């Protein structure tokens, strides 16, 4: 039996396959379709302090090998999440990571504090959402600003803090370094690329919000590159995501330097993606006589590795 287990910033998972924030609801939605407890961990939709209604429709639009979304962080607010959704999520018996999206440092701190003893295994700071006016990406593109908020969150909780970065920057390595120096325990790479589409018959943008976040296989090469660059520069575990649809895709991220991966848009293409990936990883390792998957992390740039 191959050992797929990983530990990211102290969060122990039986395999490295997570779900990407916002694509998997609270897990309950997919529970009838497959055994959600087989996953490595769950990640919540972005949570805000107050309930948030999200953006006007249309909120999604398909693009070649991908999709644009502009959900706009619709969520019931952190308190309602803790009361209603979290208990259901914890029932799956796997770690739950809360994705938090403050508009300001103060909000981020408040979110972290409320979640600290709520039962979640860690926090994923979304400083990279392209679909909201305040906060989101605006906080996440300037290294100093990002560092300041990360530091504040790290100090206000004893939960592991994972910082999710945007690829819509000139220098993602610089951003990752700043966030690492500020005390982040792990990184999630990548959030969506900023994009848009136009309805040429109506002659106006297709999304209610005009611009949206591009995800899916289309962006995979950008995401793999981000993981490759950051993992060589920064000594933090990385959760890789962006267009992962198969075990092969997941391995691309792992070989590039990700310790774990998250499945997002692929659920819409095939709801069984994540379980298939877990099986694929098992069989890839078995076939290549690799006893512990974690030996492959960064193998495409590391020369050494565990024994094969």
């Amino acid at each position: 039996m191959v050992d797929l287990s990983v530990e990211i910033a102290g969060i122990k998972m039986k395999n490295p396959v997570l779900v990407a924030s916002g694509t998997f609801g609270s897990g309950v939605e997919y529970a009838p379709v497959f055994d959600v407890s087989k996953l490595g961990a769950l990640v919540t939709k972005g949570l805000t302090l107050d309930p948030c209604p999200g953006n006007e429709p249309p909120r999604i639009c398909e693009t070649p090998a991908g999709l644009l979304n502009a959900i706009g962080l619709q969520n019931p607010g952190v308190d309602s999440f803790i009361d209603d959704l979290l208990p259901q999520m914890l029932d799956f018996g796997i770690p739950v990571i809360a994705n938090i999206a403050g508009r300001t440092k103060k909000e981020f701190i408040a979110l972290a504090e409320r979640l600290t003893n709520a039962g979640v295994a860690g926090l994923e700071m979304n400083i990279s959402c392209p679909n909201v006016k305040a906060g989101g990406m605006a906080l996440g593109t300037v290294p100093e600003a990002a560092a300041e908020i990360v530091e504040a969150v790290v100090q206000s909780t004893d939960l592991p803090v994972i910082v999710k970065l945007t690829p819509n920057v000139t220098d993602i390595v610089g951003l990752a370094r700043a966030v690492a120096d500020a005390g982040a325990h792990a990184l999630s790479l990548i959030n969506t690329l900023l994009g848009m589409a136009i309805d040429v018959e109506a002659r106006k943008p297709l999304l209610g919000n005009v611009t949206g976040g591009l995800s899916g296989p289309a962006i995979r090469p950008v995401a793999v590159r981000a993981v490759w660059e950051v993992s060589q520069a920064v000594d933090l575990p990385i959760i890789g995501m962006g267009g992962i649809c198969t075990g092969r895709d997941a391995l691309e991220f792992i070989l590039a330097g990700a310790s774990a991966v998250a499945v997002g848009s692929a659920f819409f293409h095939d709801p069984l993606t994540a379980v298939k990936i877990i099986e694929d990883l098992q069989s890839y390792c078995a076939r290549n006589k690799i006893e512990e998957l974690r030996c492959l992390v960064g193998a495409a740039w590391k020369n050494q590795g565990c024994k094969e």
Partner: protein
Amino acid sequence: MIEPGEYTCRVIVQNCLSPGYYLLSLEAPELARGALPGQFVMIRCGDCYDPFLRRPLSIHYVDGEKGEVQFLYQVRGKGTALLAERSAGDKVQLLGPLGRGFSCAEEGKKGVLLGAGVGVAPILYLASSLKKRRWELLILMGARSREGILRPEVYELYGRVAVATEDGSSGWKGSVLGLLKEKLKQFSFDKIFACGPLPVLKGVQQLSIEKGIPAEISLEERMACGVGACLGCTCRGSGGKQLRVCLEGPVFAAEEVIFDG
């Protein structure tokens, strides 16, 4: 009612009904046993990542004994065009049954069923289910012209059928909404059920309020997950909350939703 599941189904047969309209029959015994009228599936149309998303299609008809589920669809773009290329023996993947369907618990009422354009798709299974519950049904089918009136003969098995075409090439000349108004003047109904483009649904909502007849309408919205996970398909609920068309819908009581504009 069964929980949604992921299925790989064999195509039994696919027929082109009239240019651009297809009837697809799949071998899907679980669905055929458990799906309710008004529910839908998310169907994978191609083999690759383009198109990437599945397409929502309503359940048109089920034959529980044969284990067969039918879909009636119009080719609109890339996805449906690829689906139309499938033929007997091919496999298609789908997730279903999804969403909340029409309510058909009551017995022996009088109902008017309206299907505008390819919106008639879910009306057939609904009609057959209500018929079993001894409803007396009037089925209104609307389209631009007679070519768009799909399979009227099978609808006739479950009720009286009246047709409206905008060019008058068949039946009443004008919109199917106009026809509904006429019928509501002439007859009394316990309930309206409707599926079709937004303007038609708005009209039905208004008539429902005016006449005080409860109505159920089936909405469309762009969908990604189909199970309530992505929040991509929301519409405005009258309680002020966002409703997920894929999970809280696609069928809503007319007064549950607010249409903009």
